[in-house]
């Protein structure tokens, strides 16, 4: 394997980068956590807040599995630092349920068999939520376009696209 450039993490360990008290608003709750300023939001969520529903498939911004919502936008949490996310509204997959009721997207994904291994699903659900929040009745092509940054190696996407459409239709009826 090629000699790696020392990653920022190694530098951090060497230089003993300072910890800082972060104040994050995640899934509607204020969380305070003392952590390295070099940590990505993904790392802060998973390692410091134990919100392991957010996944990682590359930590380079290439796969979409780490998607979370920041102020209503889908963001790759591996490309954002924890310190950059203060004062923002962060939503992870754990925050999709409302009053212990599944979100219509979660119901639709479960009902249509859109989850196989499930590893890509948290990121896809959040990306789809942004789409439906902005465009409640997307066409199939709009759904494709919106989800094109979220890789899924299991499903062939067909049932995922159908599930997003089912959720969109379901909301209409409410």
């Amino acid at each position, binding site marked *: *394997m*090629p*000699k790696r450039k*020392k*990653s920022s*993490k*190694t530098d*951090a*360990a*060497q230089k003993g980068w300072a910890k800082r008290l972060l104040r994050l608003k995640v899934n509607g709750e204020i969380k305070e956590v003392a952590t390295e300023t070099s940590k990505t939001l993904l790392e802060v969520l*998973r390692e410091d807040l*134990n919100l*392991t*529903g*957010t*996944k*990682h*498939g*590359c*930590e*380079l911004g*290439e*796969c979409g599995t780490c998607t979370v919502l920041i102020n209503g936008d889908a963001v790759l949490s591996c490309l954002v630092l924890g310190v950059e996310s203060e004062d923002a509204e962060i939503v*992870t*997959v*754990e925050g*999709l*349920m409302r009053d212990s009721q*599944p979100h219509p*997207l*979660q119901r639709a*994904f*479960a*009902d*249509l*068999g859109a*989850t*196989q*291994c*499930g*590893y*890509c*699903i*948290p990121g896809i659900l959040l990306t789809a939520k942004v789409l439906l929040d902005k465009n409640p009745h997307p066409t199939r092509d709009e*759904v*494709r376009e919106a*989800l*094109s*940054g*979220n*890789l899924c*190696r*299991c*499903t*062939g*996407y*067909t*049932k*995922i*696209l159908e599930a997003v459409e089912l959720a969109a239709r379901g909301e209409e009826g409410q």
Partner: protein
Amino acid sequence: MRKKAFSVIGKPLRKVDAMAKCTGDTRYADDIELPRMLYAKLLRSPYPHARIRSIHTERAAQLEGVSAVITGKDLPEKFGIMPSTQDEEALAVEKVRYVGDPVAAVAASSEALAEQALTLIDVDYEILKPVLSIEEALASKEESERIHSWNRRANIQKAVSFEFGDVVVGFARADEIFEDTFFFQGNTHLPMEQYCAMAQYGPQDKLTLWSSTQTPHYLHRALSKVLGLPMSRIRVIATPVGGGFGGKSDPFSHEICVAKLAMITGRPVKITLTREESFYVHRGRHPVKMWVKTGVKKDGTLQAMHFRSFLDGGGYSSYGLATVYYTGALQTVTYKLPAYKFEGVRLFTNKPPCGPKRGHGTPQPRFALEVQLDKIAEKLGIDPIDLRLKQLVDPNSITVNGLRISTTGLRECIEKVAARADWKKKFHQLPYGRGIGFAASSYISGAGLPIYRNEMPHSGVQIRLDRGGGITVFCGSIDIGQGSDSILAYAVAEEFGIDPADIRVVTADTDLTPVDLGSYSSRVTVMTGNAAIQACGKLKEILLPVAGEALELPVDDLEMAEGQLRSRSYPKRAISFAECVEKAEGKFGTLGATGSYSPPKHPANFKGSGVGPTPSYSYTTSIVELSCDPETADIKLHKIWIAHDCGRAFNPLLVEGQVEGSVYMALGEVLMEEQVFRKSGLHKYPSILEYKSPTTLETPPIETILVETDDPEGPFGAKEAGQGPLLPVIPAVANALYDAIGVRIDEIPITPDKILRALEGRLKSVSVPWFDFPPPIKWQPGDGVGVQQKS
């Protein structure tokens, strides 16, 4: 009599874990944290082929926060998935054989520290000439080019040769003989979840290993061998696998290293490989060069085939012994073939080891076979579908190489897919630039033999009945997303006439669950399903008489349905399942039963006949419609139709999901995915961005048609669905491209550069090397093709 009306089977139910996967509750390996946990990292070779002169770990060990550093000396015992080719070391002892081969492992208090410690390990390598291609491996003469020393001829891992029926006579009978060469480039699984394992060594001198693995049982055995611990002291827990596709089926270095590090430090140790490392760990599709000679009558019927395959195996054996056989085993189970010769050889090269990927060794020959049939049909002026319809294998027959076919839905698959795609109207009739192509295939529903020779069942299920009617099903199977946990719940729910939601499923934990061999070879539904049905049968023998006594009814009149045991004739006379369980427990004590399953014995008994047999073969057909712009060679897929004989759909949603996922994976392989290496042995595309795979935008609409044949060997008639549907899609794309623009690309992946070269007449045909194969093992198949079995 087999029950035909089902209450659970065939229904589009939710998977038992569907909601947990939508809420983030599913705990994958890397989601587990333990108190006092350490983090491990592996130091990997930067050279494809080198001798290790020395390794100095002192500086790393002295770094504050580092708890342990190990090298090959600490884990000298060799291992490997196949008992006869144990050529892997957890950490290389004398030699490294590919870029990425692990040489040392560190456990430290953080990942960053472990990574820093790696930079303080000094390895002195003597660089050797790397062997990087099939041709170079075949030409290896010098001792320094030899990658392993255990095999007889330098860099030849395994060469096999068979002759079934009389090939000379077959070719003599033929009116036309076709000879073609093909190349299928390697590609990798790319599961979204990277490899991850964690180990804990407890105060009772017991080891627990959590891992994202498809084969916890084989891992259990390998750990015991390498660590020198009895299996009774080791517990392997396979965590829900975030995508496998065959890539998590070997015992791996990182799993063994965290176990050893946990034993040394007495603390839990976790390792998560990076995406780049996952590309180097690989074990994916073998690059295969193929030469096919086929003799046919003027009417297109096959008379004889001679098939040669050359597999580029990478640095270690892995599953390669099975793979080389698989490149020759299943040519015979789709169309009648009276005479067949197969020669195959797997080579060692200084690249990441190849192994099983969805379809294990059969997508490559299937591509060659189905493209050649398309060429034959064209030359003879026969519609390619009609050509195949003339010569489908018969149900209840034995093939020329001794494989037993039970049911086949191939004809129905062909007819349905052709009708839906409007084949007759489109084939040869679409405007230049647009085309349609067809291919068919078949696959095993589970390997007939286990990986290590033994007489024990392939799958075991244990069922415990609780007071209150609760049911817990224990099985060693591991859910890799295909839904194997749900399959257990559905089978038991169907047998007991209860709601699957009332069943708890406990799987993939070697301390708790009976052995199941693992999620490979498309075996899980057939084998765990049958084992579960057997366990239910034993419990029914207890429950039905108890209910009969309570209801004062003969057992013959009883059925289990809607959570009750009740009279068939007067359904109102009923006792609830829960009440019956309590009465039975009162009478007999604690209630539980086990069931097991082993595949039927196969008819052939020559050396090498163990690869290919299966309880039943699945069949698939696919039609692809696409456009190709002759200026840019850009391909646009319009639609894929696919029909799959799944025996019976346990749950149509899950079967469709397997079919759609297979189509998707096939499209990635045929159009873009490549695992290729530079002269330095480095991967050309070791990231998700560079290793192109289809997104939502490249995946076309897929129309799935399920065909049910009610196979007698399958649980409720089911066959496999997870791998077979990948096979026909790849050649169907190649055939559609030919229909569109009139060029044949006999090399996978079919990329724009190759298409443009072909359009300009500059694409060379695939060169296949010469090799002196061993004399064939000859085997005569009884009466030949289509032997009718007594039913």
